[in-house]
């Protein structure tokens, strides 16, 4: 018994050491730099002025052409805070405009002006790429010219905008949902087989993302290779966690609630260890930082997102088949159903649970890596996802593998589609409210077995 418990201590040091080995000396900042096409005569810079005035300068380009062509003859006006017109001008043959603010720099510093562009003076069939640019507020803070550039392109508002946006949101929601589903399987499997709600599951997701980042940015491996290694290391992490920590605790008869609080301790511990080594900054993998989206109809999809979604689908299908058809999968479902009965019918429950921890952590790590690939990562990337994963698992039915998948996809769709009606900063709130409502109406979740749970 004592030996087992010292193993727990050893494991904690082991995982510290593991991170230490791969510790970054300093987090590499990888910034995505957008390449801007430059044209010879487009947006030609005027000669330097040497007077004490401030101008609002900029350029209008038609981004449908490559390189972008200048747009001539568009009228712009500048209005001050009182609503008085203080300057106006038109774009020249190179697409440039130059609006001089009245008075010296001293007079205009600290003022706020609104730059309005007149869409009626655009060439036929041309519109602002970003319709919000029609009025731009500028605040003069330093004694330099203010630069504003406008992109002109095809009309983005002719179709029913709500429908287009809905389609966009549906697709991004589906992608987010597939990721959530992969992330949720581990939590649901562990709950099903051991009854433990793992509050440190978010840190398992982060583990994959951060391990891949260390392999990628510190050891210089290609992102894909780093991702594969990260999944393997995650699997080892899950295996080690079960063998070194959870199995001894189960043997010892530690209660479920005590274990739940241990997961909270583990979550706090791991999250801060992550921050210790990687800092509080956001990071990106070094490959695939700039991608050109594919335009399909009115929807734009990046190949990266599509690939990530494809990987998710394949993983979900493989896991489903494995759980349904293989011996070990059947054993897992049996243990989920009734551990005592499974044990008495000859299933090695401990082995099943260890496998569940290993596979579940590997899947969580994969989800973390894929999430980091699409959205970037920091030390608490998984912690931020934790409640959504909880929502997914509860919606689908705690302990049900299919439930976790369906719940994940539904929650993903819900948070993205809900932004049509609610501010996007509150999109997670919608998912959390759904979680509470599901418990009110159908506590066992969509696919859970109806049983007396209280």
């Amino acid at each position, binding site marked *: 018994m004592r030996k087992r*418990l010292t193993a*727990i201590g050893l494991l*904690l040091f082991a995982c510290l050491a593991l991170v230490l080995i791969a510790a970054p*000396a300093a987090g590499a900042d990888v910034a995505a730099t957008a390449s801007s096409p430059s044209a010879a005569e487009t947006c030609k810079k005027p000669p330097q002025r040497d007077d004490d005035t401030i101008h609002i300068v900029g350029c209008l380009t038609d981004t449908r052409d490559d390189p972008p062509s200048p747009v001539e003859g568009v009228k712009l006006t500048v209005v001050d805070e009182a609503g008085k017109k203080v300057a106006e001008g038109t774009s020249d043959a190179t697409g440039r405009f130059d609006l001089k603010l009245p008075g010296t720099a001293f007079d205009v510093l600290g003022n706020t002006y609104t730059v309005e562009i007149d869409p009626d003076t655009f060439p036929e069939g041309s519109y602002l790429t970003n319709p919000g640019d029609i009025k731009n507020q500028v605040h003069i803070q330093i004694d330099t010219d203010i630069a504003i550039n406008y992109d002109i392109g095809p009309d983005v508002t002719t179709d029913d905008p709500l429908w287009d946006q809905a389609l966009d949101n549906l697709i991004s929601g589906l992608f987010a949902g597939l990721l959530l589903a992969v992330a949720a399987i581990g939590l649901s499997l562990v709950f099903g087989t051991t*009854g433990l*709600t793992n509050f440190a599951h978010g840190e398992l997701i982060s583990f994959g993302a951060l391990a891949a980042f260390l392999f990628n940015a510190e050891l210089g491996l290609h992102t894909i290779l780093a991702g594969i290694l990260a999944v393997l290391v995650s699997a080892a992490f899950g295996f080690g966690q079960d063998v070194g920590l959870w199995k001894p*605790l189960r043997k010892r008869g*530690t*209660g*479920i*609630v*005590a*274990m*739940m*609080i*241990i997961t*909270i*301790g*583990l*979550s*706090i*511990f*791991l*999250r*801060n*260890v992550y*921050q*210790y080594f990687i*800092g509080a900054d956001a990071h990106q993998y070094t490959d695939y930082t700039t991608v050109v989206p594919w335009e399909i109809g009115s929807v734009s999809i990046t190949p990266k997102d599509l690939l990530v979604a494809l990987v998710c689908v394949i993983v979900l299908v493989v896991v489903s088949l494995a759980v349904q058809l293989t011996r070990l999968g059947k054993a897992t479902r049996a243990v989920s159903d009734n551990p005592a009965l499974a044990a008495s019918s000859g299933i090695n429950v401990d082995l099943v649970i260890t496998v569940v921890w290993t596979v579940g952590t590997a899947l969580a790590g994969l989800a973390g890596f894929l999430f980091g690939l699409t959205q970037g990562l920091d030390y608490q990337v998984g912690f931020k996802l934790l*409640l959504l994963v*909880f*929502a997914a698992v*509860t919606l689908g039915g*705690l302990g049900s593998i299919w439930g976790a998948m369906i719940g994940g996809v539904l929650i993903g769709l819900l948070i993205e589609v809900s932004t049509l009606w609610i*501010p996007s*900063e*509150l999109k*997670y*709130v919608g998912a*959390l*409210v759904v*979680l*509470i*409502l599901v*418990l*009110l109406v159908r*506590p066992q979740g969509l696919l859970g077995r109806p049983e007396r*749970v*209280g």
Partner: protein
Amino acid sequence: MNWISVLTQTLEQALGPSAVIYCLAAIGLNVHFGYTGLLNFGQAAFMMVAAYSLGSLVSKAGWNFWLTILVGLAAAVVLALLLGVPTLRLRADYLAIVTIAAAEAVRLVLGSVTLKKYFNGQDGVFGFTDSFAALNPFNSSMGFSFGDNTVSWRPYQFFVIVTGWTVVAICCLIVFLLMRSPWGRVLKGIREDEDAVRSLGKNVYSYKMQSLVIGGLFGALAGFYSGLAYSNASPSDFVAETTFYAYTILLLGGAARVLGPVVGAIIFWGFLSGLDLVFDKLTGGGDPILPAWIMTSSQASLMRLIALGLVLMLLMIYRPQGIFGNRRELALDAR
């Protein structure tokens, strides 16, 4: 290097406003978890609705300070009812998930840009402590000294501490009396064996709800003190960690013990700030004891949280009853 200053600053923290706030929150959790076995992971939400009721109504609507205290308590009661209705009939872990989710939802909504007009977004509410500060009879720094060293607090802080620990004492007395009563014995019965209590004809659901409301009210008091002590209540004060700290305090001192949260809070904050100061000293200055390649000063500030996670784990593994808890009384397993 002045190590004695580490000791005095640690004492200032161990008895200071933070300890008061988290002690009150932990007293609430003691009612929930220690006595009834309810896993409320959303204590931060009870604190937040109370602190924001106080802050927003006083500073934005100009309400009377004492009236808004009542409103804040009422808000905590409403929150308890909202959380309890869907979850108290279910297994313990459902309550845990729902409360942590609800706490996050409350924090996101109150801190949102959409409601900035009422709650100032991420900056939080401020400018609501005047009525409280006007009662402050202290006008110079107060504290105590041993040898050449003094432990002292600024007048307003000292006022917060004195009133705070008084409120803590009253709360402990209330908990003591409640748990000695037949009502309290029913709660403990629910914690140990819900079905047995049900078979005796008690309405378990109703008792759990009462427990959730009462513990939530203690949480609301913690929220008021959080706002008053820092003269500000912002979303970052009420993150999930806030609840987890309160749990650590409760488990450190011993759950289901009246004075457990008090002892836990003093030890917790002493430990936390002591550790912080030690690592700060080790990494600070021109020629730090720990070289920068091992630990920089920003990494040093994380050491206390890393240690906290470890302490929470080791506590639950080796001594789940806490320092003063009784292992036989509290079988830490609500299933």
